[in-house]
């Protein structure tokens, strides 16, 4: 019998490698120092944010430059729930997700009226509205922001080390959950539709795919994930202000550059891009604003000369895929391993 298969040999190796990497990373508190844990946790949050943006822009064609709306929303939800309602920070992060999704629905209803690039700027307007509203909330410090009270932080775990381990594992778990959800979505029935939309939206539409519905699902799901990661980011920072929470540079520019450099429309792209981004940051950080300028230039160069990003170059050169996402038809007589590509 013929059947549809996702895995290739490289993706089987990929999955095995990812499993090993996850175990190694989960054990990081036992082999890495405090500095390393902080850096890794930050890397995880960027992998998650970039993967979510990649799902949105790379697959669903919703090029948003306003995802900082949901990062900031998540951050503010964390502070509001912890400070105003006395909720445990980890519970607050979990609550931030569904609220993010809930907020995404009316936002989508509004900005889905805009097409293409105008949609992009529309998302930015929404983020600006969120930022301006946040600066009106005086119980959360208004325009100048607020810190998470020490008592609440201590309540998380008795020792500083235990707290740091907890946050690190939380970051790893959330990022793994985000990536897992995206992979599951792409492997589902919706995944095929999404890939069709990515490749040719008009053709997808005329083949009976309800493009708007799928885009809405992706937008809401992304709002869910982004708000949760936002809450996590500000639990790590312990301080929030409208300008940091809704920063277009931190939560959108970097995230877009990461995805473009790594490879947009590919699940591996954001991971590769984040690694490149952090290497660049560690080596160029002394340059100050010049470093951002270089990032922008690199992204432009990649967009024009290697539009599929670094992972795209690698994947095309070697036929690799790290995660079993492609569907391949395996014909009946060939029960053996059919090789790299069919």
């Amino acid at each position: 019998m013929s059947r549809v298969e996702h895995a290739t040999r490289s993706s089987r190796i990929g999955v095995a490698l990812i499993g090993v990497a996850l175990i190694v990373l989960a054990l990081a508190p036992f082999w890495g120092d405090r500095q390393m844990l902080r850096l890794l946790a930050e890397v995880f949050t960027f992998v998650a944010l970039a993967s979510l943006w990649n799902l949105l822009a790379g697959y669903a064609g919703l090029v948003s430059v306003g995802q900082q709306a949901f990062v900031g929303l998540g951050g503010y939800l964390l502070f509001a729930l912890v400070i105003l309602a006395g909720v445990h920070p980890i519970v607050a992060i979990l609550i931030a997700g569904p609220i993010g999704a809930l907020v995404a629905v009316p936002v989508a209803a509004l900005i889905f009226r805009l097409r293409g690039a105008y949609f992009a700027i529309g998302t930015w307007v929404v983020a600006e509205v969120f930022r301006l509203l946040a600066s009106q909330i005086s119980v959360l410090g208004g325009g100048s922001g607020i810190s998470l009270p020490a008592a609440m932080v201590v309540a998380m775990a008795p020792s500083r080390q235990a707290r740091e381990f907890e946050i690190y594992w939380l970051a790893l778990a959330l990022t793994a959950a985000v990536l897992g959800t995206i992979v599951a979505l792409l492997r589902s029935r919706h995944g095929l539709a999404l890939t069709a939309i990515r490749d040719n939206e008009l053709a997808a539409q005329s083949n009976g795919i309800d493009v708007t519905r799928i885009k809405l699902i992706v937008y809401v799901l992304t709002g869910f994930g982004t708000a949760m990661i936002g809450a996590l980011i500000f639990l790590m920072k312990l301080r929030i202000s409208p300008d940091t929470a809704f920063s277009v540079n931190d939560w959108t520019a970097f995230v877009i550059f990461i995805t473009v450099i790594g490879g947009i429309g590919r699940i591996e792209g954001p991971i590769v891009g984040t690694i490149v981004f952090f290497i660049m940051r560690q080596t160029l950080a002394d340059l100050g604003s010049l470093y951002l300028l270089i990032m922008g230039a690199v992204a432009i160069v990649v967009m024009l000369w290697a539009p599929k990003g670094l992972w795209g170059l690698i994947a095309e050169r070697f036929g690799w895929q790290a995660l079993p996402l492609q569907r391949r038809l395996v014909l009946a007589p060939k029960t053996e391993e059919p090789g790299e590509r069919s």
Partner: protein
Amino acid sequence: MTEWLNVILQGVLIGGLYAMFAAGLSLIFGVMRLVNIAHGDLIVLAAYVALMVTQALGIDPLTSLIFVVPVMAIIGYALQRGLLNYTLGDDLLPPLLVTFGLSIIIQNGLLEWFTADSRKLQAGPIEIQTFQVMHGVWIGLLPLIQFAVAAAVIAGLQMLFYKTALGRAFRATSDDQAVAQLMGLDTRHVFAMAMALSLAVIAVAGVFLAVRTNFDPAIGPARLIFGFEAVIIGGLGNMWGTLVGGIILGVSQAIGAQIDPGWQLLAGHIVFLAILAVRPQGLFPKVWG
């Protein structure tokens, strides 16, 4: 009563500035379906060019337009020919991401060169001259000049579009790029001319912005958003619509600010979102092409 009249009048006059932000954006979208995310940063760049020109030559800001407008137009032509033409095609992502990258480059380049300090251009006595239109209602000379210039810029663009060979080429290229090429139009050149014109308008907007308020390298994105909101409120592809859009935005902000200074920008965004909700095609939609 006269207090509110003053507020609304202020809003109308600043609306002219917003319309100038919008006109350049609308122009290039109309001709080549490009949305330039770096639009606001280019406005700020124009303000810095004016700063350098006024300092180097010791002339007043409005006179500096003689230099700033051609300089920006040349930058626009070069930008389109050298970079943005390569991003145009069926895929939406390249122009968007490249202009986004450009926005980051301009912002940080300006930051590196001019620092984050706030600057302002001094236009001399006309800045404070006002006259009374009726009892208790005053108009500043500078805002009035700025509004008149905005209206003239829009009338000029309108005329250029419908009465000149270049405008004809813009509309033909917007209609059907392939056939425009067949008729001997080099669309790379036509697009570059559109961007040059867009940046010429940006130059005027940038100088008036710099005379009116303090500016620093980070204020570009907000100007992009104002321009964008004015375009959508007025209706895509309608030049006079952008003036109305700009005025509505300006008046909303002025009223918001009068109620509570923290509500100035918020009021503008909310009116924009409300119009988007009830009339997504804008108030006066008319798409050439």
